[in-house]
């Protein structure tokens, strides 16, 4: 079937397209900041979903690619004077390269061992970057103010960063769909169900897993560069927060793993809830506990996530929600 006839293909893209366009038209700073955080969450969750949802490998340290890519991009941008576009791609490529190297080794592990190894890699990377002097050590780096001048001052630069993030998010969603509906993606789904059986049937599991890992590491690197450029500084504590990895997992689980639409809905839903809890007078001290309780309820009672649940209960919507 031609992909553009399938609502599952264009629906997520159109949602993000319209959303970003509305923000650009209204041109309001607070709205842009909110949309930036949300789009970032969507991009990160979707890229994690490419690994988690399709191959079933749980990466607890996916934020390591956000951090390392962000650091590299920031370094290229601020210290070496690269343009934003090139620096972000550079950050993404470095993340992808590291994922390739790490993946060749770590992806031999399965299940919980893989999950543990990813936690270890995240902690090791954070400790390493804290000690790595070119990246500013424990204090991190600040953006060289002249970097903003190229884009017509800080105000304009932030809008350009937003547009770039908006496009990146759409690309992630597009890649997510294409992977799922390719022959390659079918192989990944087979690995998720039973890796040994998949290998017997001719799926080259080690290669397929490594490629998936590389794809899902590239985008966090790009997004990291954009995020830290927007913030104006980068430091180890911000870049490798284990709980951000977990939040990404929660978003994917909330929306439904292994779906294209799921991470989009999950990320927006989670961020909205988090914002609500943080600002509500009753829950503001307890927002973490409430979020935890919600996560627990989802895992115990709706393990397929929102999109998975809808797909299982309303057959007609299966074509609309991919």
């Amino acid at each position: 079937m031609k992909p553009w006839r399938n609502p599952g293909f264009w629906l997520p893209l159109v949602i993000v397209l319209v959303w970003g366009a509305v923000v650009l038209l209204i041109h309001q700073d607070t709205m842009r900041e909110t949309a930036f955080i949300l789009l970032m969450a969507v991009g990160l969750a979707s890229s994690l979903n490419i690994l988690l949802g399709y191959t079933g490998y749980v990466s607890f340290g996916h934020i390591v690619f956000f951090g390392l890519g962000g650091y590299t991009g920031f370094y290229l941008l601020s210290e070496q004077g690269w343009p934003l576009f090139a620096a972000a791609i550079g950050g993404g490529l470095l993340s992808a390269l590291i994922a390739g190297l790490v993946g060749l080794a770590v992806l031999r592990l399965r299940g919980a061992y893989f999950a543990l190894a990813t936690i270890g890699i995240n902690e090791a990377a954070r400790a390493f970057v804290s000690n790595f002097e070119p990246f500013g050590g424990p204090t991190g780096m600040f953006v060289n103010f002249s970097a903003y001048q190229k884009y017509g001052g800080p105000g304009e630069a932030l809008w350009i960063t937003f547009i770039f993030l908006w496009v990146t998010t759409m690309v992630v969603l597009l890649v997510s769909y294409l992977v799922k509906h390719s022959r390659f993606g079918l192989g990944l789904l087979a690995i998720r169900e039973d890796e040994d059986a998949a290998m017997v049937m001719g799926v080259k599991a080690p290669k397929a897993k490594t490629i998936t890992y590389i794809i899902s590491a590239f985008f966090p690197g790009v997004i990291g560069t954009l995020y830290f450029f927007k913030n104006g500084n980068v430091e180890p504590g911000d870049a490798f927060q284990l709980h951000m990895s977990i939040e990404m997992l929660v978003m994917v689980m909330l929306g439904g793993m292994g779906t294209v639409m799921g991470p989009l809905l999950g990320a927006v839903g989670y961020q909205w809830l988090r914002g609500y809890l943080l600002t509500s007078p009753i829950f503001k001290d307890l927002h973490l506990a409430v979020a935890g309780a919600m996560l627990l309820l989802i895992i115990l009672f709706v393990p397929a996530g929102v999109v998975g649940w809808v797909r299982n209960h309303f057959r007609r919507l299966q074509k609309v929600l991919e």
Partner: protein
Amino acid sequence: MLDQLISSLTDGLLLGFVYGVAAMGLTLIWGVMSVINLAHGPVIALGMFGTYLLFTHLGVNPYLAMVPVAGAGLIVGLVIYVIAVHRVINAPHLSSLLATFAVNMIIIGVGTAVFSTSPQNIDYSLGSVEVGFLTFPASRLVGAFGAILVTACLYLFLYFTRPGKAIRAVANNRMASELMGIPSSRVLALSFGLGTMMAAVAGGLIATFFPFTILSGGPYELKSFVICVLGGLGNPLGALVGGLILGGLEGLIPTFMPVSWVPVVEFGLFVLVLLVRPSGLFGAK
């Protein structure tokens, strides 16, 4: 130079015993039910606060306070198992990882609201001990002794009592032990409770060494992962040895390079062992 080396090594090893206890809890849970308990850190922190509250408000000796703290730890573990873990025990790893992480968030969230994140400490000193040229705080020595005591109790329990034997049977083969009439759900709950009990005790012991906050459990949880992998996941004695190795490393590394490199070495070693010998340094292939 050698004196300094030996004294920092001793210090690290004594601390290593306590790390070992925390890791033993984690490894016990993994060995019996293949669940990685991501709520381990917060339980360690609860152990710290339990000891602290008993000491400052009721004036209980912090070492005596270990007994009620251990009891509370067991109950907390049973509750966590029944609410969060039992339903996902046969589900893929992702579910149990996320379920225990949800418990982690709940405990940290409530704990932060109740205790805030300002550091506390137990103001109780046993003075220091001198052995030859070595001088170290007596609390380290008592801590290490407590850790050995807990390990011995666990060993005796697992090998010489009926519930302990049931735990080992379920760890070995859950289906077969059910066929032999062992109520596996109850045994799983008990093992989870024992695991969190060890975490709470380790927390109590650590609280006598260092100041702590409700978030302090996190680093010890990560150390426990490293230790478990060093000693072989599911092997309690390996966990104690792994704890000693980690403690020794923490003592030795700062004499050669800046302290901030310690985590790089620790986690590098962790990933390396996972890759080369996922069964641990002492596990069978």
